[in-house]
């Protein structure tokens, strides 16, 4: 570590300080509270940053400036919008299933928060080093579709119902290729733990080390996770021009904001998975043989590496959204079941073969 004080030292210091005042049970409880607050803070800050980034990226791609009025270069725009949503009334339509209708945003958001647990943002900055980390993330994030189906069903709106059904078909399909593309790397690395996957990339990121299968898996991962996020060109569940807003047509105020926050949190999670599995997590960029260059790269703090790569993938996803038209539902499912899934399976076989022969670096 280049930093004089690592994140591990900070967490240890907090733990020792709390132990000095409280008995062990309270220490665990207060630490859980602190960690939970830290996660919520992180997600909210990231969501605001991503909303601002999305608007600016969209603006520059569309020959305009994006938000410019609130704050310097419109930087306060997202806060103003959150304030507006907080003050708005949450309407429940007539004939809606009130319980499911109010529960759906919470389900979607809770699931997004659950999936954040095993990520390692920097050395020592990890909530829970689960030995099945990657599996946990993909398992938990697939619960989110239940919330979307609940929202679509309970709204008593035919557009919402169509959106919910589309979303269900889409997320269930694309989870397969998203999972299989990660498995290609898991095979090479030999571990499901996030920490181990990152450490295994200290001599080179998997996208470079893993030959063609890793690169192919990365492309499939980006496509499949964009589809899982319900973002353009796969935003059929929302499909503003077809279904007005799909499953969240009837939501307003903070209930809508929770769907929105969940979408951006999921974007953040997907980018972090991509970063961790393919782009080396918080590992700096190294080229074998260029010692001076490698040494220079080590000076960049690890969390900057991590968030830099995360934002790179976020930018890719935003780039898709503001460039491509939307696909049709049959084309969407055809792409998954006829192309991505068979190719991913073949890719896993090749990856396994390469691993057995020891051809990866």
């Amino acid at each position, binding site marked *: 570590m280049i930093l004089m004080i690592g994140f591990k030292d900070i967490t240890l210091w907090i733990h020792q300080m709390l132990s000095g005042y409280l008995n062990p049970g309270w220490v665990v409880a207060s630490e859980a509270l602190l960690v939970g607050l830290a996660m919520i803070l992180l997600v909210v800050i990231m969501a605001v940053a991503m909303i601002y980034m999305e608007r600016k990226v969209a603006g520059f791609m*569309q020959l305009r400036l994006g938000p410019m009025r609130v704050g310097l270069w419109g930087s306060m725009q997202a806060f103003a919008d959150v304030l507006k949503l907080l003050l708005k009334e949450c309407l429940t339509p007539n004939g809606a299933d009130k319980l499911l209708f109010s529960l759906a945003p919470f389900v979607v958001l809770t699931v997004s928060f659950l999936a954040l647990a095993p990520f390692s943002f920097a050395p020592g900055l990890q909530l829970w080093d689960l030995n099945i980390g990657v599996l946990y993330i993909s398992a938990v994030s697939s619960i989110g579709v239940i919330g979307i189906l609940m929202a679509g069903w309970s709204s008593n709106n*035919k557009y919402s119902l169509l959106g919910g059904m589309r979303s269900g078909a889409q997320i269930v399909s694309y989870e397969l290729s998203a999972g299989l593309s990660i498995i290609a790397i898991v095979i090479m690395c030999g571990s499901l733990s996030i920490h181990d996957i990152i450490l295994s990339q200290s001599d080179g990121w998997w996208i470079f080390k893993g030959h063609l299968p890793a690169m192919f898996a990365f492309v499939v991962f980006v496509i499949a996770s964009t589809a899982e996020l319900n973002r*353009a*060109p796969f935003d059929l569940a929302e499909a503003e*021009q*077809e279904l007005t807003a799909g499953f969240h047509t009837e939501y307003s105020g903070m209930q809508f904001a929770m769907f929105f926050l969940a979408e951006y949190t999921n974007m953040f999670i997907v980018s972090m998975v991509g970063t961790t599995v393919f782009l080396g997590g918080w590992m700096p960029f190294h080229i074998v043989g260029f010692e001076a260059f490698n040494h220079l790269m080590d000076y960049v703090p690890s969390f900057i590496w991590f968030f830099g790569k995360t934002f790179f993938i976020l930018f890719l996803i935003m780039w898709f959204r503001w460039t491509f*038209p939307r*696909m*049709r*539902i049959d084309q969407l499912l055809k792409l998954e079941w006829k192309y991505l899934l068979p190719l991913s399976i073949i890719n896993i076989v090749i990856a396994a073969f390469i691993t057995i022969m020891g051809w990866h670096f």
Partner: protein
Amino acid sequence: MEIPKQLIPLEDTPGEFVINVGPQHPSTHGVLHLRIKLDGEKILEIEPHLGYIHRGIEKISESLGYRQSIYLTSRMDYLSAHMNNQACSLLVEKGLQIEVPDRAKAIRILMVELQRLASHQLWWGSAGLDMGAVSPFFFAFREREQILEIFEETCGTRLTMNYITPGGVMNDLHPDFVKKVKALIKQFKVNIHEYDKLLTGNIIFQKRTQNVGFLPRDLAISLGASGPVARASGISCDIRKLHPYDGYEKLDFSEIVMDKGDSFTRYLVRIEEMKQSMHIIDQLIDNIPEGDYRARVKGIIRLPEGEYYQRVETARGELGVFVVSDGNKTPYRIKYRTPNFSNLGALQYIAKDSKIGDLVAIMATLDLIIPDIDR
């Protein structure tokens, strides 16, 4: 051809359900109301409901003079305001046998072709928007904005111009007109390649529009479709070629006719038409004749007793104006044959058995303007 008489019932039946698209829906571009019977994602039946923006323009025109009723026509197909005004002006000129000065004719064609460009640009942007691509809209508005600025300088307004009047045009061109139009055309010839890069060449866009929404040639004829919609089905129906007016016969341009009849062909026809419009403007912009911009016409126009019909090619097809005059200063009866009304008729046949997403794509390539349907 069988005309469906059965209206779609209000209630859902098992396995099928009915949704209302519009009158407030983002992709109907106005207050068009479609009742759609669905089986899952598949469309079983479509029933357009009209009348949400019916203003009785034809009836109002019966109590207005020939000059006054032209102002209302700008509000029909608001993206082809110049063409609508031109149709009425040509009809009056035909009735009174007024010779329009050459300069006025040239100005009219320039304005009309600029309007066609602006209309097709807006269509291109909104077609992308309907299929979920937001960025094309802004690229389209970049050029359209320049055209509207040119209109604003000469005509005073941007949308409802009322610039073309019986006998010629309202007032002479702005001194900057030629310079600005040249700059615009030069720029647009470069920028139209961006249109191709963003949408035409995009694989998702092609898959969405190719082999979707077939309008067969004979169906197009029996529905009275016109404009790019009909020309994409292989019907030669460009009024500028078939019944030239205002000096189109002297210009070199070609009628775009393609014969596949799907959504992508309709798209390509409009893209090619933009290039033809630029070609027409290129020929005229340096050769605007000197002279009067308006012939002398009496203040109160009284058409001789009889029936008159005049048609022009708007950005969306054939606009026909039919007037029965009893010799008074107001028409006895006026009837507009608007292109969008006939083109809308195609929707329930060609969007049948397709997906909801296709319906939006088909409506985008039909390029419907709702106030023109209802009048």
